[in-house]
């Protein structure tokens, strides 16, 4: 992405978002203080492993976390308007209207009992005041735009008659149907093969360009992040541990967890060596340590880590780690760390 086209006036501003669930085993803190901005036309990637709270964070913003035992606090400003805590009725024009969603599994995101055309028309008519006929022609136009061959006849087909990649295109068409300002994609290509993934990522970038929208892409795949994102939020145990522009993050990562995440990826150009791993398993969100959540797995843990590190750093690049900047640079430069 050319950085110059991004307007950094935030379209979405998330501040200290916390989502917790009261369970029989105690309070489960799924998201524990997440703050980030999404600029106009910016693609922000949220990366983290399963259980890091990346999906819950996004769902809670859109009022999709409906569990009775959930507590959501913080602030989410979309186009300068607080959307956290809005009623379903108030959220209606936003969800599917100015914020489009692309879900991970295109089979469950579409209902199997209606044609894709029916589903698109319903979505369009919900948000734009169009006649059935006009909505239908808009649906056909959208299907064509997302690269579905012969949209005129495909519009009357059922989801099961499409392949996985084609289904995800339908979901994208649906997300785009009302010209959203922001597109949220939750693991949009995880269920797809790499050749299809390439098609879909390509399509998303092209469409983002034509529609001038911003994208938040949630993924566990650093490769997808590198391909798509302008800026990256790395999450661990519900907390952001590092936020930086994509190239900066990949080339000069500062948080030990980010190091581990980057080094654990088997590469196409590096042969048969031992992979660096992060020892141990992810922490339980029921039992987060009071200090740094990554401390139990960190190779550089020190006494100070019993206290929770704040996000700090200059300009665009912030991280939550007690190591000094000089220490981080030195550690990353040592031979076993150079990639």
């Amino acid at each position: 992405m050319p950085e110059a086209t991004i307007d950094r006036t935030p379209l979405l501003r998330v501040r200290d978002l916390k989502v917790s669930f009261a369970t029989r085993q105690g309070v489960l803190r799924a998201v524990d203080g997440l703050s980030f901005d999404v600029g106009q036309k910016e693609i922000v990637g949220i990366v983290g492993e399963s259980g890091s709270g990346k999906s819950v964070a996004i769902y809670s913003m859109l009022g999709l976390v409906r569990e009775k035992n959930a507590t959501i606090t913080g602030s989410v400003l979309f186009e300068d308007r607080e959307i956290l805590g809005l009623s379903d009725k108030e959220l209606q024009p936003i969800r599917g209207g100015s914020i489009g969603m692309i879900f991970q599994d295109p089979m469950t995101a579409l209902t199997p009992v209606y044609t894709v055309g029916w589903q698109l028309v319903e979505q369009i008519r919900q948000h734009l005041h169009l006649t059935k006929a006009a909505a239908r022609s808009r649906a056909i136009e959208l299907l064509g735009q997302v690269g579905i061959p012969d949209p005129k006849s495909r519009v009357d087909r059922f989801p099961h008659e499409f392949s996985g990649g084609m289904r995800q295109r339908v979901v994208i068409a649906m997300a785009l149907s009302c010209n959203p300002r922001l597109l949220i994609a939750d693991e949009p290509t995880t269920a797809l093969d790499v050749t299809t993934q390439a098609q879909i990522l390509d399509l998303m970038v092209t469409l983002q360009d034509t529609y001038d929208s911003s994208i938040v892409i949630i993924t566990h795949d650093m490769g997808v992040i590198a391909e798509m994102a302008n800026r990256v939020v790395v999450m661990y145990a519900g907390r952001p541990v590092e936020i930086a522009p994509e190239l900066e993050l990949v080339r000069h990562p500062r948080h030990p967890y980010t190091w581990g995440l980057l080094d654990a990826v088997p590469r196409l150009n590096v042969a048969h060596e031992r992979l660096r791993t992060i020892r141990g398993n992810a922490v339980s969100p029921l039992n987060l340590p009071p200090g740094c959540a990554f401390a139990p797995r960190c190779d550089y843990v020190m006494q100070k880590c019993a206290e929770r590190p704040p996000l700090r750093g200059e300009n665009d690049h912030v991280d939550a780690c007690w190591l000094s900047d000089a220490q981080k640079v030195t550690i990353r430069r040592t031979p076993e760390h150079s990639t």
Partner: protein
Amino acid sequence: MSDDVVLQATDVVKTFSSRGKKLGTRIVSRAVNGVSLEVRRGETLGIVGESGCGKSTLARCLVQLLPVTSGTVAFEGTTLTGLSRRRLRPFRRQFQLVFQDPYASLNPRRTVGDIVSEPMRINHLGSSLQIAERVRELFTTVGLDAGAINRYPHEFSGGQRQRIGIARSLSLNPTLVIADEPVSALDVSIQAQVLNLMADLQQEFNLTYVFIAHDLGVVRHVSNRVGVMYLGEFVEFGDVGSLYETPLHPYTEALLSVVPELNDTDAPRRERIIITGDVPDPADRPSGCPFHPRCPVATEFCRVEKPMLVTISPGRQVACHYPRNLAAVNATTTPA
């Protein structure tokens, strides 16, 4: 690694038939369409392909969990295909499977100790005391706490469950382990742990692996040789380094070009080749080359004439009328 062949498959075909739309008709899908391969002792043979290319079906045919429709599979020189279940049994101990889904492949109602010891109990390998001892040993080997044998699968994380699956597969001291997407359900940091464990075990127990995966990075990392499958056939075979550097088949080339990579060096990226369309239905195979409808360099000839898997240079085979990067491959193998 020696040239001693552990497992040899010759022209294996597996078809599935299902009821057609019209009454009385049958649809025949050729999931595996004439595959020949050999697995050499001590090596890791990687098999990559996208979903639906038949790689899992092939794995099941290799270990006789599915009867082949035609062709033969031989293990250390003995033909397995056509053997009765009883005659097969002594061989089954020698090749074990590690499955993809660590949640579905462990019985939730049995303790993990039970799960790991079951193969030994079935094969009457020692007294219950000896077996219990061996289970504890296996747990330690795969990096689990031996005190956890009385727990149930749900008490373990995905990575730990996969370790349990691996312990079970090792319990009979197999020669060959066929791993079908063993790490695809795991997070990247846990995936790295399991891959390292598998590498250690291979060394320690002199195992031969067939490693099936869709992740090209993972396959590159673990394999000595790699076969690329498309629509039930191998389109390319090669030593891992040369195959990844100079892919011969246009499908392999495209596949490698679209793997998202971290831009952490200034090295120029491969040019992305995005192939259009979807994998064809195995019940309705294209004529000629199976890849021709999506191939960027296909000609009329490809539509008519099916290319055979031919050896281009030592260790490199490809099924394509117009292989790519030929000059580069020839330059590296026949120094001028």
